[in-house]
């Protein structure tokens, strides 16, 4: 989920949440009588059937239809933005031009990085993907690490591996997010009998 979508979600949550909270508290205060004590003009009952007066106006049909269509389009865009995959797919390499295009399968590169990571001492599992985030490529990896691994050595080797992947793909702006997920228990090798 990108930063813009997160901001939209926060704004809408605030815009919806504030009236809900106010209306909810007002309903409770109405029942307890506190609302009529503080505000004598408080009505003793509300009649939702007065919505008929709005529906009967000349403008309601056109405005409701147009507003509903706009709202539906916005809601569909909003939903689609949540469901969109961040995977980068095919990467276009430098050197592409009118004569042809050089491309690289992002999942193949990420798979290779994961395979190389699994060979590092102290790493018991790895998976990687390449995402697009904010207009740049991000190599997202999770390495399952033995709790007795030598972290200083391992972190240097992983940093080299990630930098080499960036250089091989010729993605100078590539960033990385590499979680070293340490396992609960150390891997015990079988004893030699």
């Amino acid at each position: 989920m990108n930063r813009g979508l997160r901001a939209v979600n926060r704004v809408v949550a605030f815009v919806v949440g504030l009236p809900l909270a106010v209306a909810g508290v007002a309903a409770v205060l109405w029942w307890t009588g506190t609302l009529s004590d503080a505000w004598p003009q408080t009505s003793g009952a509300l009649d939702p059937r007065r919505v008929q007066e709005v529906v009967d106006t000349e403008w309601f049909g056109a405005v409701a239809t147009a507003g509903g269509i706009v709202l539906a389009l916005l809601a569909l865009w909003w939903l689609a933005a949540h469901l969109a995959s961040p995977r980068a797919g095919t990467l276009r390499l430098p050197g592409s031009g009118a004569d042809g295009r050089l491309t690289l399968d992002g999942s193949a590169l990420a798979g290779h990085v994961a395979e190389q990571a699994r060979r590092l001492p102290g790493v018991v599992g790895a998976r990687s993907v390449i995402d697009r985030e904010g207009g740049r490529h991000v190599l997202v990896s999770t390495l399952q690490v033995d709790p007795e691994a030598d972290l200083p050595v391992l972190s240097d080797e992983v940093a080299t591996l990630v930098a080499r992947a960036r250089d091989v793909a010729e993605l100078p702006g590539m960033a990385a997010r590499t979680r070293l997920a340490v396992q609960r228990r150390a891997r015990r090798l079988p004893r030699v009998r």
Partner: protein
Amino acid sequence: MSAATESRRTRARHADASVGDAPVEAPAAAHEPVPFAQPRPAGPVGWVGIVLAVIVLAVAVVLVHDGLVTLGVLDGEPWVVAAADAVGLITPTWQLALVGAVLALVGLRLLVIAVARRRRPAIPLAAGGGEYLLGVDAARLASGAASQVDGVLDARSTWGRGTVRVDATTDGDPATDERIRTVVTERLAALADAPRVVVRSRRARSDAADGGAR
């Protein structure tokens, strides 16, 4: 000089030496560091967006339906009018207060989601490559390092606010605490900000120490 600083400098010297010794083959230290893309856990902001989008879509469907009914394109009665007729007159009853309380709680939850600060739980590593740990990872590494120290029978660790606390069961040697602190500090020296290491040990019962020494 702390063990963490010494370890980091030792590794830096090692990297510099490799650059000078092997100029033909591109060494590890020759790579430009890869920027760290901060992890951004979506948290409740993610699912609340989906729920609200579905609600907005439902409202839009009702609006379009009622608009087309009013324009005479569709037959039937506007849904808002039908719903208002079904609800009838609203008076201040306990049922309404109950609904109001639920609505208030939902609204407050939405407000908290909207204004809550985003957590950044990542503990970055000094080596680059976008590497990071979570607190639980740092604690497990500390336990793994401590359990390899002679005289340690069992070790458990917790992480909080830049401090790792190691609770160890030992054979009673008073020097074990310092050895644990040294080993854990060296192991976690790879973090960008070296943590404070607090060791608490307790002596194992004699029968456990006799049978479980490493």
